[in-house]
């Protein structure tokens, strides 16, 4: 039937568009959106980043890498380091806390209750992130809710507000619902017969968890970690409100350049490019090493 000299009858072949074109046509609207909302803005930010000290109202005249040279001054290393510390810490905390929760909802909660339980976990997202952070102040401050409870049970008070731990708590709380949602989606698709197969082959429940559940949900783990990491890198609310006197992060620094008194959009753009670069590297690493089964050609 592949013989071209015998075309199948009744097949209109005169007006058919080349088949390679059709998928491209279907992708065109998405491509336009991607170009307009992602590629063009990123290029504009990049161009701005090449202008030292530009403020609104000035001519964009790219002149070199001064803004980037400023970033590589040792002054800014602690800022990037702190951003990475907060983001990686939040990602790990969300994984450790989120996995059991998602596992419990996906595999233990009866099916008809799952959506309700999920809703309960996502509910905090409906409040303003700012208000959530302020709520943590009320809980964590020296005479706050946490220390009141601790003193009742005879534990010395914890001074964690305005320290790194408070920021990590606030960020983890903000990001946990996303992690749970994504891990739930991955675990919910888990073929439970695989767990039976593992058990059948001699795997105890912990062994089955590490050798089957975790690898099977690796895509979800990677996606969730990526989302939490990226969002955490851009979070400036929690470090600002819950952090101490030394809590400058890249996101806060960028904010200061655009909406703060400084109004240095060029330097802000350069910082943004560095942030984009860090995030891109994280994505690339995860794509390369994160999901073996995908790399295996499934």
């Amino acid at each position, binding site marked *: 039937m592949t013989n071209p000299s015998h075309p199948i009858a009744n097949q209109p072949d005169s007006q058919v568009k080349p088949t390679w074109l059709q998928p491209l046509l279907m992708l065109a609207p998405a491509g336009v959106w991607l170009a307009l909302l992602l590629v063009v803005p990123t290029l504009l930010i990049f161009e701005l980043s090449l202008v030292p000290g530009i403020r609104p109202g000035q001519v964009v005249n790219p002149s070199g890498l001064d803004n980037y040279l400023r970033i590589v001054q040792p002054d800014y290393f602690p800022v990037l380091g702190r951003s990475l510390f907060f983001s990686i810490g939040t990602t790990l905390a969300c994984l450790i806390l989120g996995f059991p929760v998602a596992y419990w909802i996906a595999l233990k909660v009866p099916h008809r209750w799952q959506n309700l339980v999920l809703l309960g976990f996502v509910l905090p997202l409906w409040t303003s992130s700012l208000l959530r952070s302020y709520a943590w102040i009320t809980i964590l401050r020296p005479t706050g809710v946490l220390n009141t409870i601790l003193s009742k049970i005879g534990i010395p008070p914890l001074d964690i507000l305005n320290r790194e731990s408070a920021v990590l708590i606030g960020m983890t709380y903000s990001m946990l619902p996303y992690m749970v949602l994504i891990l739930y989606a991955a675990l919910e698709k888990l*073929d439970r*017969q*695989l767990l*039976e*197969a*593992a*058990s*059948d*082959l*001699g*795997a*105890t429940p912990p*062994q089955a968890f590490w*050798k*089957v559940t975790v*690898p*099977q949900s*690796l895509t979800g783990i990677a996606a969730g970690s990526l989302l939490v990491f990226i969002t955490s890198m851009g979070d400036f609310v929690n470090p600002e409100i819950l952090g101490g006197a030394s809590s400058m992060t890249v996101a806060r620094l960028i904010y200061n350049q655009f909406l703060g008194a400084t109004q240095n959009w060029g330097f802000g753009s350069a910082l943004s490019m560095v942030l984009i670069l860090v995030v891109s590297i994280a994505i690339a690493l995860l794509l390369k090493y994160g999901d*073996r*089964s995908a790399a*295996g*050609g*499934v």
Partner: protein
Amino acid sequence: MSQAATQNQTSTTADAEFDVELRKVFKVFNSDTVVRGIDLGIRRGEFFSILGPSGCGKTTTLRLMAGFETPSSGELLIQGHFMNRVPPYRRPVNTVFQSYALFNHLTVWENVAFGLRLQKHTKADIQQRVDESLKLVKMDGFAKRFPAQLSGGQQQRVALARALVNRPAVLLLDEPLGALDLKLRKEMQMELSNLHRELGLTFVMVTHDQEEALSLSDRIAVMNQGKIEQIDSPEQIYQQPKTPFVADFIGDTNLFHGKIEGFYPTMLWVITDNGLKIKAKPPDAGSSLTSGSVVVSVRPESIRLSLSRPNEDVNSFEGRLRNVMYLGTHLHCLVDLTSGDRLTVMRPNLPTTFPSEDTPIYISWSPQDCLAIPIT
């Protein structure tokens, strides 16, 4: 496998010839009783099938043996050890799943090595046994592939290798060939049979395909509505069904409901509900069946057709031919009797002209080919 010994809680006086034994086992899911008091013993080294329609509880029975379910009551023994509460990973059995349940994040080789690695075998030992197993199922060339890169039949072989490599006492097969197409299924049936003979293991297979069960098994348990109807060899199941359900379920048959009218030492007279008088065999030679309701079963291939009235008038009735279907080697037709019964008749497709539909016709069968089964 050795953990099983440590789990020996009660040294029940188990019959040593049984690898798997179920005693009055019940299984209830949320007030839904799926298994209702099963008693069965599976002999060491035999190919045992559990056959039944979907929903009859056969898969649950297998899952009880594997340990994925716990009996609600009754006793389960494997190789003489009490196993009711022993988790799957401590049972000397391995399962081949209907959907294969291969780990798609692992290669074929890693899938097969999964069990051995957990048991902390040496590297060399694992390598040798995995290679052997893959060779056994003719998959030695596919060790580095991922399951998604294999066809259904190939995945089936890997699933077999993965279970067999652990040298289980009992291999459990849950509809192992259900997902394969007909030709592949025939081929795999042959290989399963060969494997069983080569390895000498106890095989327990669940299937709804009676042909598969009949051709592969040493013995078959026919299940219906959570109960075992009959356990016997394939020949006996086919020729000597003990219950109306078995008679109906195994192969095609024609059933007449009726009452015993009279009896000889080896024969019974039955009057059917529609008034036919049938001479039939009792279920067993020395049967004491002399009265009560019965079902009479006549296989379609035992029924003769003739255009004129047969000389013998025992089990001979008048009717009309309906609906003739050509099935290659056989002809399948329906005959409406004047009594109102409709019978299925199967005749060899011989190079003679066959009467056309609507022809008045006579049917008859020998009393030897017709079995009366008591309704309990």
